[in-house]
């Protein structure tokens, strides 16, 4: 299972004059679920964008399944097995649910599996099947999040990157989204999840990193982090 391991080593990255990441290192082993938590503006989204090639690190490197991603164009990463559910979901609101899934299966390797994977997505999220001919933009936030995850699964990924899946959702819906993440995990998929909702995410992942102003401030097993008094005070509202 060497093939699905992701490692990030001393990555510096940013936009123009603004630097968002200062030497971040991180590792996700195959089959693992790892969380990255931290306050707004800590560089969590930038981290995922570096992994999926949308921005290039200024220094440091990103390796997936033993391959250096520095020279690989972003659009070839889904074929390598990386799927990224971006911040704010970024569905195509004017396309139907099923058409969104079709775009998710765009790569040559994914096309032959379109029907099988679509049906699998429909069993994971039965609501999607009911709404498959509905325009994605007309669905509720939670349904859109599920559709975005479904779209990412269509490429048959080895690792799933999730950017703030709970953002803007009602507490009950947040619960449903995390339940789904747990089920996806159980199917053996490697998951890297970025969240502000620390309490929830620590219940889903095995390990987590705490990112603060572009640096890794703490890391460890979820249970250990959840018990850490500093973390509790800063992120879990405990005492």
């Amino acid at each position, binding site marked *: 299972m060497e093939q699905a391991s992701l490692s990030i080593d001393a990555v510096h990255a940013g936009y123009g004059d603004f630097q968002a990441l200062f030497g971040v290192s991180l590792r996700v082993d195959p089959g693992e679920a790892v969380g990255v938590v931290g306050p707004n503006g800590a560089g969590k989204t930038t981290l995922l964008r570096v992994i*999926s*090639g*949308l921005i290039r690190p200024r220094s440091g490197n990103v390796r997936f399944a033993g391959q250096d991603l520095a020279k690989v*164009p*972003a*659009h*070839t*990463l*889904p*074929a390598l097995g990386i*799927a*990224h559910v*971006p911040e704010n979901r*970024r569905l*195509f*609101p*004017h*396309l139907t649910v099923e*058409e*969104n899934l*079709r*775009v*998710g*299966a*765009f*790569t040559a390797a*994914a*096309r032959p599996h379109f029907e099988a994977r679509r049906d699998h997505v429909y069993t994971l999220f039965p609501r999607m099947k009911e709404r498959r001919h509905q325009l994605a933009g007309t669905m509720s936030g939670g349904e859109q999040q599920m559709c975005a995850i479904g*779209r990412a699964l269509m*490429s048959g990924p080895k690792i799933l990157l999730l950017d703030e899946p709970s953002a803007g959702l009602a507490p009950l819906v947040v619960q449903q989204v995390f339940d789904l993440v747990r089920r996806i995990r159980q199917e053996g998929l490697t998951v890297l999840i970025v969240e502000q909702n620390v309490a929830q995410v620590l219940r889903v992942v095995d390990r987590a990193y705490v990112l603060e102003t572009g640096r890794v401030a703490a890391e460890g097993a979820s249970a250990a982090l959840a018990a850490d008094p500093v973390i509790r005070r800063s992120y879990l509202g405990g005492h």
Partner: protein
Amino acid sequence: MDPFLLEALVNGILLGGVFALPVLGLNLVFGVVDVVWLCYAELVMVGMYAVWFFYSQMGWPLPLAFAVCIGLVAVLGVLLHLLVVRPLLTQPPINQVLATGGVLFVLQGVATLIFSTEFRALGVDMPPMEVGEVFVSGTKLAAFCAALLGAGALWAFLKFTYVGTAIRAIARDREVMPLMGVDPQRIYLIASAIGGALAGLAACLLIVQLDVHPFVGLSFGPITFMICVMGGLGNMLGGFLAAFLMGLIISVGGFWGTTELSYVVAFAFFIVVMFIRPQGLFAR
């Protein structure tokens, strides 16, 4: 109903069909690449010359001349993208428009050099048909049907294929496309080729009803842009409907006044639409 008015209505719809193809092509390119091809009507002009040359001068069968024309203009669309548009993608829109305006002059100049300013006619005509009380030009009817077929094929492509779906998706959100495994540059090329092919098909339908000369593009280019904008730039369905609306305005306007004044009415209508609904008549 007055049979002449009825005839004007029918002709308006037929005219709309002719407008529809270049409008769809322009909208496709604009929606995907976000660049207005100011030389679009000149691509059609090149296609018209191609059909005339291969059919009238080389004696090829008409269907073969049509096929070569469509392929040729599709290649031109790709070249236009690679040589002119792609290097300007990060420039302000107006520079892109002006550069394609330069291509407009180039194509006019090349056509003048090769074919001179003489008007060339294909000399193909089909007998008129009588439907009820109305006479309909057989050529125009055939062109109309072909235009509808072309539009239908485009719709099916956009609706049912992976690339077509990606084309519709990219029009809304460019940045997220690489996450879907889509190379935007490749989609731009495909859209440019299809945009060119539609101009080629439009050329086939126009050359049977219109003489070609190097400046023929100026006679239908401006109205094509206006229809696009009226329907909402990048909005394929809106453009398609607006093409028929403009066709009707011009044809029915010509029934009450002169053809020239009907064009004035159509253009004035366009300006008013821009003032009232700048996002296009059919924007959702």
